[in-house]
């Protein structure tokens, strides 16, 4: 199933996400969508699902759809259930001989629509084992409504509902580990990734997720320049720092087997990831060193746990 990654060939495939959508300049969300859709084999058709969020309101603003493929948006919390319905219809119509083509089913949701309000619907879809991929483009907050805190928001992030203030250091809680929760559904494929220079990691995982029969989940760190507070052009540096500090480890869980797909040669201190982002700027004020220390401890703890699982 897995074919060797031919970067130039992959990049020469016809584009399945058209320009003209209204996502912000420098948005990580559409980079995720493009990367995942590139993993579709050209001869296969697809139905793309979408939870309400930035991506939805920007990529299908009537009468402009940015998708080459069929597309369905239903609501915020039900991308999993909606695509379950589409995929089930496909199976029954195929069985009845009403359709012949091969279709693949991929749905996108932001972290708000996935970690929070859509978690139940996602869990149901994964547990039932629909042959579909749920892709979370995780930018760590409710960006569509203006950067409110979600359960994917990292600790201490300054969001509009966890503002850093005189007596507040931003978000109190640590982030939810959704990829692990999905792995515990015992589905055949779970992957966590982000953008690397030639996009091999995300491409390979997307292809596995799409072409592994059954339910698959892909968690993609998709930086948001507006919500995180960095210059749009810095996106790839931010991604690199996220993986090299082990804030965002890249791994996959295939049939219950955990495997790291990237190990930094030298694990960088978490400050390197936090410093370029305005949402963490309060952590660098004098007297807040212990907060960065706390952040580091959390990253270290999770990295160690992950490494154990991946042994």
């Amino acid at each position, binding site marked *: 199933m897995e074919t060797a990654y031919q970067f130039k060939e992959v990049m020469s495939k016809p584009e399945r996400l058209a320009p003209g959508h209204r996502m912000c300049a420098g948005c990580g969300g559409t980079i995720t969508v493009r990367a995942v859709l590139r993993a579709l084999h050209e001869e296969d058709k697809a139905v793309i699902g979408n939870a309400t969020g930035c991506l939805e309101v920007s990529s*299908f603003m009537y009468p402009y759809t940015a998708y080459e493929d069929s597309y369905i948006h*239903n609501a915020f919390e039900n991308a999993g259930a909606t695509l379950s319905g589409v995929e089930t*219809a496909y199976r*029954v119509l195929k069985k009845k001989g009403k359709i012949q083509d091969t279709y693949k089913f991929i749905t996108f949701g932001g972290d708000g629509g996935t970690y929070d309000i859509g978690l139940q*619907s996602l869990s*149901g879809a994964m547990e039932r084992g629909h042959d579909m991929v749920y892709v979370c483009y995780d930018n760590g907050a409710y960006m569509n409504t203006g950067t409110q805190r979600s359960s994917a928001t990292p600790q201490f992030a300054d969001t509009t509902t966890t503002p850093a203030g005189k007596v507040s250091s931003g978000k109190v809680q640590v982030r939810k580990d959704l990829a692990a929760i999905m792995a515990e559904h015992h589905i055949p494929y779970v992957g966590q990734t982000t953008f690397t220079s030639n996009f091999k990691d995300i491409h390979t995982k997307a292809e596995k997720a799409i072409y592994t029969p059954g339910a698959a989940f892909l968690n993609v760190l998709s930086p948001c320049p507006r919500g995180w507070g960095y210059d749009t052009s810095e996106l790839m540096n931010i991604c690199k720092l996220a993986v090299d500090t082990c804030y965002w480890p890249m791994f996959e869980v295939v049939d219950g087997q955990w495997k790291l797909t990237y190990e930094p040669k030298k694990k960088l201190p978490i400050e390197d990831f936090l410093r370029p982002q305005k949402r963490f700027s309060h952590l660098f004020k004098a007297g807040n060193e212990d907060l960065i220390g706390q952040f580091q401890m959390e990253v270290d703890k999770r990295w160690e746990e992950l490494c154990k699982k991946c042994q």
Partner: protein
Amino acid sequence: MAIRERLSGNEAVAYAIKQINPDVMPAFPITPSTEIPQYVATYIANGEIDTEFIHVESEHSAMSATIGASAAGARALTATSSCGMALMWEELYVAASDRLPIVLALVNRALTGPININADHSDSMGARDSGWIQIYAESNQEVYDNFLQAFPIAEHPDVHLPVMICQDGFITSHGVENILLVEDEKVKEFVGEYHPEHFLLNNKEPMAVGPYAVSNYYMETKRAQREAMKNAKKVILEMADKFEKLTGRKYSFFEEYKMEDAEYAVVIIGSAAGTCKAAIDHIRETTGKKVGLVKIRVFRPFPEEELAEALKDMKAIAVMDRSEMFSATSGPLGAEVRAALYQAKSNAEVVNYFYGLGGRDITVEDFQQVYANLEVMAETHEVKGMYDYIGLREK
């Protein structure tokens, strides 16, 4: 030859589903509609139908998956009651706005607060503005017949709207009655194969569903949706005609019982109409008083002009609501019937009664009292308040 059977309302709906053999049914258990998915699951388990069942984890997901399946090009349906439908609320609007021909078997049950599992119409009445066609039944026979007509109405190219087939929880859903079933081949012919023009899995053209529509488009979208609801009136009557030719059973927007010469009328929805009919027969037999009934079958689209025409010359009318809407005045049916009569410049005295909330019984004697009250109102031209209660304990 029609098949004679004895079935509960839930069994009758499940049997209709079996005969229709739809493509996808996502459903979640809730009393008193649970039996419907149970029966369907049994048909599937025994290889009697091709339907794919989706064991969703909530009613919100049930309607979400039904929407996905319908948009994909499948004939899709679900069943629910009460809080189950309340949880679907958001999705009811999406189904209608996406113009998907979904059918929902609703077994009416009181909405929670406090929890109660018995019949009233607060669930479907709350959804009356969601853009769904709503068809109600008095008996098991009616709910079966309505269900057979649901997909042909929903899928008609002039309509493309979801349809809710409603019946009263326990009273018809669990009550076993004699019923005439239509033969399988005739059902297949009546309902027909489903061939949508546009669908997600169409290899000839992709389809995009569910956009963000800014103010420049939203209002026109809603106006187009209204047109479909207006068209549904014509299509509902067409299907009723076709159905009558098939079975001899006659349906319309509402049933008029002993209305030819009536002076006093009750307007009601659902199973309590049967009790009212018994009261009418008794009153006419014993006193000769001219009492009648209008039993509403189609509440959405609302047959405003037709209702006004049927009622405008009454001396007094009691509109009976089996749900509250907490306007501190009329209930939903009361308010809409009054509005229809006002427009028709009727001089009838109108009172609105709340009855049967949370499954409270209503008896033949209760209806006799209603008609007695109407007589007094007609004589005195005095209606005490906009609304009153039947069967409420009061100090």
